[in-house]
C-alpha cells in the first residue's frame, strides 16, 4: 500500500457572493494594505490516505470532494497529491 498526503482546496464558485471575504477585504484595507483587488475565503483540507497507487487514491478523493468536502451547487474544488 502507498501512502499519500492530499491537500484539498474548496472555494466558493466565482458567481457566489462571499460576504466573509468582503468583510476581510474591508479590514485589510483598514489595516493599510494597498492594491487589494479581490479577496475570497475558501477551505483547505489535509488528508493522509492509503491506497494501491495514485489512481485508486484519486478515485477515493474525487468521491470525498464531490459528496462531502464541497457542495458543488456553490463550491468548486481542486487538490494536490504527494506520495509519502
Amino acid at each position, binding site marked *: 500500500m502507498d501512502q499519500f498526503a492530499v491537500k484539498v482546496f474548496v472555494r*466558493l464558485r466565482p*458567481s*457566489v*457572493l462571499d*460576504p466573509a471575504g468582503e*468583510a476581510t477585504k474591508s479590514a485589510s484595507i483598514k489595516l493599510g494594505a494597498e492594491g487589494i483587488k479581490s479577496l475570497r475565503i475558501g477551505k483547505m483540507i489535509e488528508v493522509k490516505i492509503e491506497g494501491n497507487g495514485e489512481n485508486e487514491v484519486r478515485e477515493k478523493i474525487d468521491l470525498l470532494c464531490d459528496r*462531502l468536502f464541497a*457542495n458543488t*451547487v*456553490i463550491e468548486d474544488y481542486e487538490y494536490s497529491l504527494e506520495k509519502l
Partner: protein
Amino acid sequence: MDNFTVGVVVFPGSNCDRDVSWALEGCLDIRTKYLWHESSDLSDVDAIVLPGGFSYGDYLRCGAIARFSPLINALDDFVKSGRRVLGICNGFQILTESGFLPGALTANKNLNFICDDVELDIVSSKGGWFNDGGEKQTIKLPIAHGEGRYHCDSDTLKKLVDDELIALRYKNNPNGSSFDIAGITNEKGNVLGLMPHPERACDETIGGTDGLFTLKSLILK
C-alpha cells in the same frame, strides 16, 4: 387521525426539537415522537419534521454531516412513499445538502445572525402547506439564522418558478436570498423546506399564530 404521529428528528446540536414537539402536541393536539438521528426505522411515524438548530455543530457546512446519518438515508423511501417532510431552518439546510430540495443555503449577505419577525408572501399552494385561499396572502413568521441566503443557478431558479415550487418569498429580503426565496417544496409537494420557524408562531402570547397552518398541514395525506 387519533394515531397520527409526527416524528421529530433529533441530531446532536438540534435545538428546536422540543419547540416543534410542544407546538404540535400543546397547540394542535398532534402526537409526536422523537427520532434519534441514528435510527433508521420510520415505520411508526406518519410525517417527519427536521427541526432547527446546529446539527453536528454545523461543521464543514450547515447540514453537511447530518446528511450521512442513518435517519437521512432512510428518508428517501419515506419521501417516495408520499409521506410529508418539513425541514425548518437547519432542517431546510439538511434537505438541500442531501438533495431532497435543490439549491443551497449560504452565509447571510450582511454576515449578521438575523433574529427577527419577517413578512412572507405565500407564492404557491403546492402541497397545501399554507393557507392560500386562492389569493396571494402574507404571513408573519420569525427567522433566526446566520446562513439562510438561498442560492441556486439560473436554470434551477427557472424550474422553481415554472413548476411553482417556490412556497414563500420574503417581502423585504433580509439575507440576500436569490429571488427573495424563503421556502421551497419538491415537485410532488410533500417535502417543504423553509428558513422561518412556524413552530415559534403558534400562540398569540408569543407573537402570532401564522405558523399553525403549516404544522397542522403535516397531517394532510
